[in-house]
C-alpha cells in the first residue's frame, strides 16, 4: 500500500494486533502451559470483539502511525512491531486493572476463583515479556537499538505503573480534580513510552532529526491524557454501568462537580457516589449522578480539558515539522471535540457571549436587537423540532416566534400558534428603556448586563413556551390548573435542554439568574407560598414550614438513602417531624397550589415571580425524568406532575414505544 492510498487507523489497529497475536501465538505454542494460554485467549478474544466493533485504544497506534508519517508505508514493519509491543504492555496493564477490563476479570474470576488475581497478574507479566522478542523478530534493527528502545519504554512504564497504583488506590480515598489529572498524566505514560520507543527506532533508521523528538513526545503525552479523559467521560455518561464509580474512583468530571457544587449539593452527590459502589443500587443512582455532574459543570469541565489537551497535541505535532503528519493527526479525531463540531476557532477569535452556549448559528451579530432575540429563539426551536421529530412528535409547522413590545413576559398564544418573547430591542430608545425592567429584575447594574442575564434564560423560556404548544397540539394543555400546566412544561423544557450539548455548563448560570430574578421580583411583590408549591413534601416541611433545620434534614436524607425509603417516612420515624406537621405540610401544599392556580397571570410581577421560582425548583430537582419519559408522561398521557416520589431514584420500568 502506498502513502497516497493511506490506511485507516482501524486497519492499522488490526494490523498491529494481528502482529501481536501471531507473535504471542508462537510463544504460547512453544512455551506456555494450557492455563496461561486459556487466560490470554480470553483476553485476546475480548480485543478481537472490540476491534470488530471498531473500538481500539488510539495510543497503541502511535508507533504505526509514526511509521506511516515518516515513510509513507502504512504498515512499516519495525514500527508496527513497536506498536504491537506497546499493545502487549497495554493489555498487560488492563489485565491487572479490573476497572479497565472487568469483562475479562469476571471471566478469570469465574474460571480461577480465589486465585484469579494472581493468575491475571502472571498473565500480564507474560504480556510484558512479549515485547523484547517482538522487536527483535521485526528485523532491521540491531540488538543495541532494541535494548535502547525497551529502556526508553521501561522508563516511562514506571510512570504508568505509578499512575496505575494511584488509580487503583483512588477507590480508598477522595481526591480532587487536580490529583486525578496528575494520575491520568502518569498512567498514560504508556503513550509517551510507546512514542519514545518508536522514536529511538526511527532515529536509528535515520528517519528523524533529534529536534523532532521532544515535540513528538509532547504530542504522545497530550494525546494519551486526552484519550483517557474522554474514555472516562464516555464510561460515565455513555455506558449502562460505570466501573469507575463502582470502584469509588472520582474521575475528573466527578471531582470537578464536587468542587463546584454548593455544600448541600456536594453532600448529596457524595451520598449518591457511595450508593453507586453498591452493585444492587448502581443502575438506580447512575442517572442522578450524571444529572448532578452535568448540573455542576463537571462534564463540561472535563470536555474542555479534553479540548485543551487535543489542541496541545495538535500544536506539538506542528512543532515536530513532519512532512506528512496526517496519520498521527488522525489519532486525534476521536477526541477532537472542536473538529467534531465543525468549528476550530483561531487563537485571535474573541470569546463568545457567555450566555450563548446553546448553539445558535443563525443569530445576527448585534446583541440585543430584535433580530438577535428572534434568531436565538428560532435556532432553539429548530433544534427542539429536530429532537421531537426524532422521537415521533411534531411541532406545528406554522408555529411562529415574535417579540412583543407591550410586555416583558414570554407567553404562548395558542389561538395564533405564537411563542411571544418579551425581549426588548436594545437598538431602539424604547427598547433600552423597557430593558430597565431587566435591570430591576436581575439586579445587574446596566441594561447590557441585564440583557445578558435575560439572554441566558432565552433557551429555557423558549422551550417552556413551545412545550405549552406541544401539550396544546396533543390535546393535554390544562387551562384550568396553572400549577399543573406550568410544572409540566417546566419539566419538559429542563429535561429537553439537558439532552443538548453545552447546556450542562450553562445550567448553573441559568439557575443563578433565576434566583436573582426571584430576589429582584420579591422586592416588588410579596408571595409567601412559593416554597409550599414544591411537589416533594419534605421540601415543603423544610423550606416552607421550616419544621426542621437543614442539617437535620440532611441526616434524614442520608438515612432515607441508606434504607431506600421515602424521606418523609424517615423523618416521621426518627421523630424529626410529627404526623400533625406532615398533615399541615400537605394542607399547605394543596393551598399553595390552589393559590398558584388563582393568582398566576393576575399580576405581572407576581406571575413572573411564580414562573421564575418554579423554574428554579425544576433545575434543582434531582430526580427529574429524562426527556423521553417526560414526553411520554406529560404529552402522551397528560399526567399531572407531582405524584408521590421516593427520594431514592428507582429503576424506571420499560415503557411502551410510541
Amino acid at each position, binding site marked *: 500500500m502506498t502513502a497516497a492510498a493511506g490506511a485507516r487507523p482501524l486497519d492499522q489497529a488490526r494490523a498491529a494486533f494481528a502482529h501481536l497475536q501471531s507473535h504471542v501465538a508462537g510463544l504460547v505454542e512453544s512455551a506456555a502451559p494450557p492455563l496461561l494460554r486459556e487466560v490470554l485467549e480470553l483476553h485476546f478474544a475480548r480485543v478481537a470483539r472490540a476491534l470488530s466493533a471498531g473500538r481500539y485504544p488510539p495510543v497503541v497506534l502511535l508507533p504505526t502511525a509514526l511509521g506511516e508519517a515518516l515513510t509513507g508505508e502504512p504498515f512499516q514493519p519495525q514500527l508496527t512491531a513497536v506498536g504491537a509491543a506497546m499493545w502487549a504492555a497495554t493489555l498487560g496493564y488492563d489485565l491487572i486493572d479490573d476497572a479497565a477490563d472487568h469483562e475479562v476479570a469476571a471471566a478469570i474470576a469465574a474460571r480461577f476463583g480465589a486465585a484469579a488475581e494472581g493468575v491475571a497478574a502472571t498473565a500480564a507479566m507474560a504480556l510484558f515479556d512479549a515485547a523484547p522478542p517482538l522487536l527483535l523478530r521485526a528485523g532491521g534493527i540491531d540488538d543495541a537499538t532494541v535494548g535502547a528502545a525497551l529502556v526508553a519504554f521501561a522508563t516511562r512504564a514506571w510512570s504508568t505503573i505509578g499512575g496505575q497504583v494511584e488509580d487503583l488506590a483512588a477507590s480508598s480515598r477522595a481526591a480532587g480534580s487536580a490529583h486525578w489529572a496528575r494520575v491520568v498524566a502518569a498512567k498514560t505514560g504508556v503513550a509517551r513510552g510507546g512514542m519514545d520507543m518508536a522514536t529511538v527506532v526511527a532515529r536509528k533508521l535515520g528517519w528523524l532529526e533529534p529536534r523532532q523528538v521532544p515535540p513528538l513526545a509532547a504530542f504522545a503525552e497530550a494525546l494519551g491524557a486526552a484519550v483517557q479523559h474522554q474514555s472516562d467521560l464516555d464510561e460515565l455518561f455513555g455506558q449502562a454501568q460505570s466501573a469507575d464509580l463502582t470502584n469509588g474512583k472520582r474521575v475528573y468530571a466527578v471531582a470537578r462537580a464536587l468542587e463546584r457544587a454548593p455544600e448541600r449539593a456536594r453532600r448529596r452527590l457524595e451520598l449518591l457516589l457511595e450508593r453507586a459502589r453498591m452493585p444492587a443500587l448502581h443502575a438506580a443512582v447512575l442517572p442522578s449522578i450524571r444529572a448532578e455532574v452535568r448540573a455542576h459543570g463537571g462534564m463540561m469541565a472535563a470536555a474542555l480539558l479534553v479540548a485543551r489537551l487535543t489542541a496541545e497535541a495538535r500544536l506539538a505535532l506542528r512543532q515536530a515539522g513532519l512532512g506528512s503528519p496526517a496519520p498521527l493527526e488522525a489519532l486525534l479525531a476521536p477526541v477532537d471535540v472542536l473538529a467534531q463540531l465543525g468549528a476550530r476557532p483561531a487563537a485571535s477569535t474573541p470569546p463568545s457571549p457567555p450566555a450563548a452556549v446553546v448553539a445558535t448559528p443563525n443569530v445576527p451579530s448585534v446583541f440585543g436587537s430584535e433580530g438577535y432575540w428572534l434568531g436565538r429563539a428560532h435556532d432553539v426551536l429548530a433544534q427542539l423540532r429536530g429532537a421531537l421529530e426524532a422521537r415521533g412528535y411534531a411541532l406545528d409547522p406554522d408555529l411562529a416566534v415574535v417579540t412583543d413590545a407591550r410586555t416583558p413576559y414570554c*407567553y404562548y398564544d*395558542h389561538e395564533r400558534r405564537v411563542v*411571544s418573547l418579551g425581549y426588548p430591542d436594545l437598538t431602539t430608545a424604547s427598547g433600552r*428603556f*423597557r430593558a430597565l425592567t431587566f435591570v*430591576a429584575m436581575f439586579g445587574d*447594574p446596566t441594561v447590557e448586563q441585564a440583557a445578558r442575564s435575560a439572554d441566558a434564560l432565552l433557551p429555557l423560556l423558549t422551550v417552556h413556551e413551545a412545550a405549552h404548544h406541544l401539550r396544546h397540539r396533543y390535546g393535554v394543555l390544562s387551562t384550568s390548573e*396553572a400549577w399543573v400546566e406550568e410544572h409540566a412544561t417546566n419539566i419538559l423544557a429542563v429535561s429537553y435542554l439537558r439532552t443538548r450539548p453545552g447546556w450542562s455548563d450553562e445550567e448553573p448560570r441559568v439557575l443563578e439568574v433565576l434566583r436573582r430574578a426571584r430576589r429582584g421580583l420579591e422586592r416588588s411583590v410579596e408571595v409567601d407560598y412559593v416554597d409550599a408549591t414544591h411537589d416533594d413534601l419534605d421540601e415543603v416541611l423544610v423550606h416552607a414550614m421550616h419544621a426542621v433545620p437543614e442539617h437535620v434534614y440532611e441526616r434524614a436524607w442520608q438515612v432515607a438513602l441508606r434504607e431506600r425509603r421515602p424521606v418523609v417516612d424517615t423523618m416521621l420515624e426518627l421523630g424529626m417531624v410529627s404526623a400533625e406537621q406532615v398533615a399541615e405540610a400537605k394542607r399547605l401544599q394543596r393551598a399553595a397550589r390552589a393559590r398558584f392556580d388563582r393568582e398566576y397571570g393576575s*399580576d405581572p410581577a407576581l406571575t413572573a415571580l411564580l414562573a421564575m421560582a418554579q423554574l428554579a425548583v425544576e433545575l434543582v430537582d434531582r430526580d427529574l425524568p429524562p426527556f423521553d419519559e417526560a414526553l411520554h408522561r406529560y404529552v402522551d398521557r397528560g399526567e399531572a406532575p407531582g405524584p408521590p416520589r421516593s427520594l431514592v431514584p428507582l429503576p424506571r420500568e420499560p415503557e411502551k414505544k410510541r
Partner: protein
Amino acid sequence: MLTESLEKVVTKAAEDRAFLAALLADADAALAAAGLSLDAPDRVVLDEYCRVASGMSPAELDQAVQDYLSGNREIGLAAGG
C-alpha cells in the same frame, strides 16, 4: 415590575420635564427636593435609568416612557403563560 417607589419616580419624570432634567443633573438632590427616596437596589436601577435617558432625545424619551408605562399595564398572558 419596578417597585412602587421606583415607579413613582419614573412616572413623575415622565410627566414633569423639569423633574426629569433635575434627575439627570443630580439624582440625589432631585429626589430629596421631590420628597422621594429610594433604597440601594432601586438607586442602581435609577442610575441606569439616568444613563439610558441621557442618551435619548426628548421625543425618544417621551415615547419610551409612554411605551413602558402602557406596556406594563397589560399582561399578555394567554393560556399557559
